[in-house]
């Protein structure tokens, strides 16, 4: 029987150098796996592989040395533990995320909830080439948002609540951008310098800030054969509905305009950055 490598690749089975052996990529969202999933993965790796797994560079798990004849048995066994195969090839890949505000003191957004939502919305969607989303909770950027086709970074937009302020001055020192100045016990924030890191608010003893938790989105990042830092068009997106509209618009633009095997950055370059910006701004202002 001839092996259809394209179908297997789409289903997460990566052909190995060793004939008739596949490294099976698993579906992971935001870097989290349950204990039940891990136990099942261990069992399958032991029974059908060589007793180990590989952690990929984008938070997935692969089980190497799966034999071509075992593929159906492996899929069925994994399903018992709520584990699905992942994907490779020209489609939306694993949605990666840091632990975000649910766990991390620095987090500004719930990265895992957003990763789940994007995974439900886009995972494995067929496109002209691979398409990667990455979500990082704050300016520390542990998840390297800008190396993704669409990178999402959590941020906090602040405005001073004078009535609650005790004038301690901690915020001005906590700010690494030099955006806060205190004159006669009045605080002002330079919006040109503020990078939405939220350190002023997190350090404030009396929470004397009104806050909006939102998103900084970059487009066209690459970190493979070619390297490009994704670029931001809108400085700060204040709500999730708008964020999703913008993600929809970006992916539609790629689907409609990209040539086969052309990464998002090169589609934007070829079609014209101003044209892409127009599409994103329309989605933003909708």
């Amino acid at each position: 029987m001839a092996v259809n490598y394209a179908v297997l690749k789409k289903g997460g089975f990566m052909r190995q150098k060793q004939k008739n052996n596949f490294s099976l990529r698993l579906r992971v969202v935001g870097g989290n796996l349950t204990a039940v999933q891990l136990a099942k993965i261990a069992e399958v790796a032991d029974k059908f592989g060589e007793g180990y797994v590989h952690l990929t560079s984008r938070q997935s798990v692969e089980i190497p040395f799966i034999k071509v004849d075992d593929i159906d048995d492996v899929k069925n066994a994994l399903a018992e533990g709520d584990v699905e195969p992942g994907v490779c090839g020209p489609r939306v890949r694993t949605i990666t995320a840091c632990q975000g505000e649910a766990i991390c003191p620095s987090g500004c957004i719930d990265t895992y909830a957003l990763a789940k939502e994007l995974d439900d919305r886009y995972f494995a969607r067929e496109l002209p080439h691979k398409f990667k989303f990455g979500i990082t909770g704050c300016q520390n950027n542990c998840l390297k948002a800008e190396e993704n086709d669409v990178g999402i970074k959590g941020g906090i937009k602040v405005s001073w609540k004078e009535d609650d302020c005790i004038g301690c001055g901690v915020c001005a020192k906590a700010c690494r951008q030099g955006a806060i100045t205190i004159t006669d016990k009045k605080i002002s924030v330079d919006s040109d310098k503020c990078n939405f890191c939220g350190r002023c608010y997190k350090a404030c003893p009396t929470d004397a800030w009104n806050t909006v938790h939102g998103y900084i989105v970059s487009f066209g990042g690459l970190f493979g054969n070619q390297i490009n830092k994704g670029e931001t068009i809108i400085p700060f997106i204040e709500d999730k509905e708008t964020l999703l509209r913008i993600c929809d618009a970006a992916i539609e633009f790629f689907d409609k305009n990209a040539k086969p095997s052309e990464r998002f950055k090169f589609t934007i370059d070829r079609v014209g950055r101003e044209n892409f910006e127009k599409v994103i701004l329309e989605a933003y202002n909708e």
Partner: protein
Amino acid sequence: MSDFNIDDKVDITDVVCPTTFVKAKVALEELDDGQILSIRLNDGEPVQNVPRSIKEEGHQILKLLDNEDGTYELIVKKVGD
């Protein structure tokens, strides 16, 4: 500093992160609920991060005073025993 009745002082300018916070935390543990600690800390990373860590521990920051020699006094009220 006359605004506050300081119960104890600690100097964390001789250590670096994360010992800065640990030293401050140990000093706070010696105090009773409601007592006030003055923490001397360096400019840069300590003054950026230590106040936030102390807040996250649940204590109350009252004031940050600039000693104008590259150090600050952070005035903290202990919350809890």
